[in-house]
């Protein structure tokens, strides 16, 4: 019964994909010129003036070429998609790692201490809604390195969901479990590690999932600003080259990598989840 449902939905997905791609392909045929080419058009190599979105067939062809050799490096403006994505993933992971390194202990602190919560809450509330890209000029000025500035922007955008979720998870650990720790005379450190951390872990991991999602959104924009390498830069560069097939292809790749990052954390979440 369950498998039947899965089969049906998979079938429906495929049908939708075929219909969508078919319509897209059909609407974006190479225009056939009715009039003979003007002299100018002849000089320009016979190209039509009418711009059009490349059809899926073109993108699939490009995707095949790019993915069959993802790591080539032919100079600053011609690197394989794998290298560009690699740079972006590297920046996201470094920024995310340092954000977790700070957000989880600080979140623990404000979750356990109402004093610290009240003291830090105003700062968090003001800093949290700031678009991470707004930090970029300041980061560039202070750090004087575009690479580290991009990582800093990732750091600052992924810190908040982790911080708040950790604090929320820690503050809402069931009172009974805290009482169990108390009646067994556990030290503060042991209580934190043996009771509060496992109890709050699912909530903390939800925060990490939100954070990595945001970080992956932001890295594209940050790299468009910073330039040089990365998938964001690549998209913008191909736009400047008017290579729309590459733009669409890299958009799809951004989606796929973002999904994979989320799946990794979702898998970890399932591993540490518990049922009451």
């Amino acid at each position, binding site marked *: 019964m369950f498998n039947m449902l899965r089969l049906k939905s998979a079938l429906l997905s495929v049908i939708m994909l075929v219909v969508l791609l078919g319509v897209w392909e059909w609407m974006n045929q190479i225009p056939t010129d009715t009039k003979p080419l003007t002299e100018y058009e002849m000089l320009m190599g016979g190209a039509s003036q009418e711009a059009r979105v490349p059809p899926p067939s073109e993108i699939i062809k490009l995707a095949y070429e790019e993915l069959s050799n993802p790591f080539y490096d032919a100079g600053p403006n011609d690197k394989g998609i794998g290298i560009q994505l690699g740079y972006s993933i590297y920046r996201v992971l470094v920024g995310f790692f340092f954000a977790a390194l700070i957000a989880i202990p600080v979140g623990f602190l404000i979750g356990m201490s109402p004093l610290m919560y009240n003291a830090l809450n105003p700062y968090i509330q003001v800093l949290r809604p700031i678009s991470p890209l707004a930090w970029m000029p300041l980061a560039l000025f202070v750090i004087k390195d575009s690479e580290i500035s991009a990582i800093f922007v990732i750091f600052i955008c992924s810190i908040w969901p982790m911080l708040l979720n950790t604090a929320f998870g820690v503050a809402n650990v069931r009172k009974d479990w805290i009482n169990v720790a108390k009646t067994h005379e556990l030290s503060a450190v042991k209580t934190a590690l*043996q009771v509060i951390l496992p109890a709050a872990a699912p909530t903390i991991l939800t925060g990490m999932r939100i954070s990595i999602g945001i970080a992956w959104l932001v890295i594209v924009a940050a790299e468009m600003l910073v330039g040089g390498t990365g998938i964001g830069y690549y998209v913008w560069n191909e736009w400047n080259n008017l290579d729309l097939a590459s733009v669409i292809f890299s958009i799809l790749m951004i989606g796929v990598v973002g999904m994979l990052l989320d799946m990794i954390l979702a898998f970890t979440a399932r591993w540490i989840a518990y049922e009451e």
Partner: protein
Amino acid sequence: MTSHFLEIQGLKKSYPGRGKDPEVTIFEHANFNIEKGEFVCVIGHSGCGKSTILNILAGLDEATEGVVIMNGREVSGPSLDRGVVFQNYSLLPWRTTLQNITFAVQARWPAWNKEQVIAHSQKYLELVGLKNAMNRKPSELSGGMRQRVSIARAFATQPQLLLMDEPFGALDALTRGVIQEELIKIWSESKQTVFMITHDVDEAILLSDRILLMSNGPKAQIAESVEVTIPRPRKRTDIIHHPDYYNIRNHLVDFLVNRSKDYAKEQTEVDPNRQPVTVNLLKKREIA
């Protein structure tokens, strides 16, 4: 004055009123003693502060006035000497059954090695008949099994005083009966001192040596201490035929239904050191 294992003196719990309201006293003048190896139950209506007394004994709550003395020393804060079985089991859901027990055993004897801890924990799981479920998570167990694990955890740490807060309150009648008998079995082997809260009159008679009756709150008091004169070993099916059974039961029900409501109002001048009135229905019967 002879010294008792556990002495509760002048215990009172009150909360400050809001604004100009007078403070709210949950219970006051609570004086009672428990001897080593005794099984004492407390019965009273909801809101009389039974759970608060238990939490104060556990060190999880603080009394407004009064002291708790165990073994000649004043109790302050939670301790492994006082084990607690909570009504909602309070097992750690991310640990398996066995790990829930080793958690407590490790806390109790930090110097033990892994084999010792596991062997000791398994022994207590076996005692409650759950050796086969030791690798299952609490979410995979029924309510009755969970409470068994919780009881095994409390007994495994061998506390000097075992506190139970309505341990069978959430269980169905059949399961409750089975676990009650298991509890009697474990208790008679270990000779643990037990302080237990219950709503169930029959449960109290089956299990305890003495039953403390609490009047209704606010300003609840511990009114009487009823001795259960039915000899041990007791069985659920047999005790109802004992001549004292209905005397005790009627006395308890009468108190809960008729007398507990106005008890506090009738006591106009209370001696703060007053002990609850000891009621022995066996003697009454002989006199009558």
